[in-house]
């Protein structure tokens, strides 16, 4: 295995090369880990909901707690109107969480450390929220760009600023997740490299750092999935209840 800290992010092909026109759609390690996390989610929830006991087993407790977490998050931030979007936000949260957590296993691949993956997710959310906004409010959704109580003279500048801050949403959403995952994994690998190069005498200090950082990374893996989902709720709230 290479000591290059960026080596872990390389996407390589598994199996034959498949191309559709000019686009390479071969099966890669990234696709493999996305499928693994999707299957992991399905199997955890299948096992958790199979037996509905009054005194829950650990796995049933896990599924029930995650349900309550997301459902409370939606009702707190986006109100009761957002209830129909629960399945989408729940699967989004679970997918990001499982991708992050699977990335914490040694020799695995972190799908969310690639900006194209996080940006694709954020773009889907952005386009979806915009469509929901226009479907609910029609042209009135454009009022989002005009804050109340602004003098007419300042209006052209304010509208441009508001449009930029609206367009910045998917970028900040995707960059946040990608940068946190990539920085954390690179740091872990760098400290792991120090352990090897300092040997048995000096290697204990970076080793202890690596252990501490692993704990921090697990916290961040959960937190980033949570932030991703809660921001989706906030954007959904803007689209459902115009309160400018």
């Amino acid at each position, binding site marked *: 295995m290479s000591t290059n800290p960026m080596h872990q992010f390389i996407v390589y092909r598994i199996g034959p090369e498949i191309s559709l026109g000019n686009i390479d759609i071969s099966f890669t390690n990234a696709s493999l880990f996305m499928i693994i996390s999707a299957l992991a989610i399905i199997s955890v929830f299948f096992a958790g909901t199979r037996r509905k006991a009054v*005194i829950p087993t650990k796995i049933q407790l896990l599924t029930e707690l995650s349900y309550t977490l997301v459902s409370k998050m939606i009702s707190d931030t986006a109100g009761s109107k957002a209830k129909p979007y629960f399945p989408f936000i729940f699967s989004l949260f679970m997918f990001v969480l499982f991708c992050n957590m699977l990335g914490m296993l040694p020799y695995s691949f972190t799908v969310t450390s690639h900006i194209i993956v996080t940006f694709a997710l954020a773009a889907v959310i952005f386009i979806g929220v915009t469509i929901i906004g226009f479907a609910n409010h029609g042209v009135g959704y454009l009022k989002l760009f005009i804050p109340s109580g602004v003098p007419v003279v300042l209006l052209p*500048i304010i509208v*441009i*600023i*508001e449009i*930029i*801050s609206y*367009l*910045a*949403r998917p*970028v*900040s959403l995707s*960059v*946040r997740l990608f*940068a*946190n995952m990539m920085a954390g994994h690179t740091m872990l690998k760098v400290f792991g490299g120090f352990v090897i190069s300092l040997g048995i005498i000096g290697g204990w200090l970076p080793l202890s750092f690596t252990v501490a950082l692993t704990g921090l990374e697990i*916290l*961040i893996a959960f*937190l*980033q999935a*949570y*932030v991703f989902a809660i*921001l989706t709720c*906030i954007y959904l709230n803007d689209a459902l209840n115009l309160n400018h």
Partner: protein
Amino acid sequence: MKKFSELSTRLKIAKKKANKNSLNNDKKNTSSLGAALKLSTEMVAAVFVGSIIGFILDNWFDSKPWLTIIFFFVGATAGILNVIRSAKLMQKNND
């Protein structure tokens, strides 16, 4: 039935313990860490998007580099606005 009553007493004791150990404080710490991670990218993203828009408009109107410069500052303004807005939202949630 005995099992249930046992469970409810055990739950009561556990709840008391949890209240003592000020669970709220712990929760606040995690959410503020999330907030700190959130604010930093908010600013960068708006500046980035502003500069990209300026660059595209420059290519359209052939006015390099003026629109890029102007939109860089407009993007920075939008970024500051975003940061203030999410800070306000956090304050509202904390109260």
